């Protein structure tokens, strides 16, 4: 059973959102390590650096300058080296079509971005706890889909 810290990476261009995210994660009980990047280009540079261990979960904001979340999702899912990474999409939309399309493209988690910190904490807590189960119990990642 894996009991090492869960490595979480967030790609978000908004300073406040990154800060709230980090604070919310730090308040959870699950052992975590957080890496923050400002946009999709930085994310892909990070992932393609052979020196770094790939993260367990990536939170991707859909609307980012330079390289958006969808493009990152496509790039990550076209490289089998990243098969084990769970991808959580952060979006302002909650339409069934958008959710479905994101999962079809290989996302594992779809999050309607919460507006309040308490709600963000609740959402991240269930997402991280579920990820922990996939991470530690060897569940089938191909079938991992969770919309909240």
């Amino acid at each position: 059973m894996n009991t090492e810290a869960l490595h979480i990476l967030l790609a978000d261009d908004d300073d406040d959102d990154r800060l709230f995210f980090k604070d919310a994660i730090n308040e959870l009980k699950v052992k975590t390590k957080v890496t923050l990047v400002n946009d999709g280009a930085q994310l892909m540079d990070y992932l393609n650096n052979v020196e770094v261990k790939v993260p367990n979960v990536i939170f991707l904001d859909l609307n980012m300058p330079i390289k958006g979340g969808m493009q990152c999702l496509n790039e990550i899912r076209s490289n089998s080296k990243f098969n084990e990474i769970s991808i959580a999409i952060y979006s302002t939309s909650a339409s069934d079509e958008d959710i479905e399309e994101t999962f079809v493209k290989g996302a594992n988690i779809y999050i309607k971005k919460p507006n309040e910190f308490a709600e963000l904490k609740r959402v991240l807590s269930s997402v991280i706890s579920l990820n922990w189960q996939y991470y530690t119990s060897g569940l089938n990642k191909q079938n991992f889909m969770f919309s909240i």
Partner: protein
Amino acid sequence: MKLQINYDIHTACKILMQQHLDKLGIRYEIVSVGEFELKEILSPSQFENLKVDIKKYGIEIIEDPKNAIAQKTKDIITEMVYLEDKLPNSNTSFYIADKLNLSYGRVSGIFSEVTYTTIANYIILQRIEYAKKLIVENKFTLTEIAHKLNYSSVPHLSTQFKKTTGLTPSMFQRIIKKRNQIKGN
């Protein structure tokens, strides 16, 4: 003929461990005689294989006893969910406690501490995982799947599916089909 040897148990152990870790094809660093830093995460089956392989040489992986109890509980649950004949006829908590020979309060406390979820939630998660597997295999109707998993009805299964994944079973089914179409092209 007598063969006398002089040996260094540490070197022997180190080389044995290196051979087995190399066999797994993972990157690692030797921290000390009894500690290896793995650069990648072992899958549960890799971990089990390694454990069994090195046991032959009297080498044992040191695990936290709490982790071991949580892992055993998980194994019991998986067996319960996946093997129809292993479905307990007594209540689940009694069944698990009995198998582990510990009080249920103790098991459930350790389980929550180690896994960050409850036994009840973990059972639901495993049942829904099994439902997903059966949906992906595309051999059974939802009615058959509900029956196989011991749900009283399809709506009962669908409600729990939606609560656990945020998706309806049919939406999940559609996504899997579309993914397969993309892969096929």
